[in-house]
């Protein structure tokens, strides 16, 4: 399954999004009230478990995690990167 679809499946099922179709890939998860502070921790847990990645503290920023598209792009960058601190990790 494509990364974006896996992310979408996780977000919509884990955070009880009742109208999953209306949540666009670029919508801010924070603005839409989909996640809160502990929700971000759950997203990190998902990324680490599902993709075998380590999310560094300084990568826990909205630019990487605040929408389905951003999470997918972040995961793709990390998977393509040689390791922590690779391209695009900041």
């Amino acid at each position: 399954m494509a990364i974006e679809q896996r992310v979408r499946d996780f977000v919509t099922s884990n955070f009880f999004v009742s109208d999953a179709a209306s949540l666009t890939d670029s919508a801010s998860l924070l603005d839409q009230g989909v996640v809160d502070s502990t929700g971000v921790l759950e997203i990190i847990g998902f990324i680490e478990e599902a993709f075998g990645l380590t999310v560094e503290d300084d990568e826990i920023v909205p630019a990487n995690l605040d929408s389905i598209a951003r999470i997918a792009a972040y995961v793709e960058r990390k998977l393509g990167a040689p390791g922590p601190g690779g391209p695009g990790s900041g």
Partner: protein
Amino acid sequence: MNPFQQAQRWPAAVPQLHDYLHATAARLPDKVALVCDGQRLTYAELEASSNALAHALVRRGVRRGDRVVIFADNTVQTVITFWGALKANAVTAIVNSQVKTDKLASLLNDCRAAALVTDARHTAIFAEAAARSAHLKATLIAGPRDESRTAHLPGVVDWDEALAAEPRDTAPPRLNLDIDLAAIVYSSGTTGTPKAIMLTHRNMLTAATSISTYLENVEDDVILNVLPLALTYGLYQLITSVKVGARLVLMRSFAYPAQVLEQLVTEGVTGLPGVPTMYAILAGMQTLRDYDLSKLRYVTNAAAALPVKYIRMLRELLPGAKIYSMYGQTECARGAYLPPEDVDRKPDSIGIAPPNMELWLVDENDEKVGPGQIGQLVIRSAMVMKGYWEKPEDTAERLRPGPLPGEQVLYTGDYGRFDEDGYLYFVSRMDDIIKSRGEKVSPREVENALVDIPGVKEAAVIGVPDPILGQAVKAFLILEPGVALTEKAVQMECGKRLEAFLVPKAVVFVSDLPRTSGGKIKKTDLR
């Protein structure tokens, strides 16, 4: 002329809450009061905008004592509306932005809100709720408004448009007294129906003065607040910072700790209020020590007890900062605080009464108990709420006669004990309210939502220990015969009805629940 709508002849004689803003704006007009969403507002700007908002409300029919519901995150508009509604002689009610449609509709009707001030990003929730309200005269919407979904709402207007032509130099005439309500704050009640705590100007002035005194807040303070303004713990960060002329750095949540830490550094933050969940998250960060937090003068904890290991972590990480363990409830903003010099010798105590307050403990016969004995905490203070909005029975249970004829004191519903030095220790709550990541969770409210799900016959909800949340919500369900549900399906259904922090983290399906001889569910046996 209706005397209830008559302007005060000597408006400045006795202060009201919004006089904090007026006085500070006169003293420090060009100082930055608020940093939020990339904006920096001076005290003069905050004063002028809130004047305009007050006039906009009055123009749309908001009268003295009317309730103005603010349904939004920690935004610039929330701050302006809080002060502006006070200046309009109205009662503010900031509602948690995570609330879902049905609950928002019931809150709007419960307090018969005359105005709703909200944010376009919450349209999916408020559009239907506001349409169901029987009392709204005005709906002010900040941000890009969706015309097709909001055009039908009562008195709907864009925030910017509503404020544009209004006077900015002065507020509407003062009609209120200091014994009038400044705020109602919705809180999760044991019965499952939310109740609103009524706070007068005098309640809030007393609380702000007491808190800012023991925290030694000064003009040079920079306070970073990620706590929702819908909670009094968050709201008092705004009030005390305006009171002393400090700067408030307002963020929407603690979701991105690195961002919060960066703000701490760049804004030179001196005061950080938090809850145990925040400190648990910070403790897990590898990079925490890379941030220069030397300007932090104090850190506070409330909402739930801070485990001693986090107190020790904070002491080690921030050797120059004072650590305040505090106790309070919405009914009385602050009931105790531990003087920071005592934190090493009494790390698990919640301390002593804040200035201008008396505390004692009583047994079930209302007799005072001595050191070492457990009793219900009773508070005597001008900080104590006026009561629960239109709930006289609930009010009578908590507000009972005090030592002086006619006075009332607060029976907190919390058990504590004093040590020989007079320091207080929190023991437990009398009811079964769960504290999850600093928010109050009423098991009954969650159970009501659970049995509302088709196929669920009976539900029991308890709190279980959780390293990050403090307590996590756990549900035990008995299903109707022949029904099959999954944990995820139950959580999804709950998510449609409840704020995220109320949704059970774990759902267990059982064939029966432990019961007392009277047939009541025995929750102690579920743990």
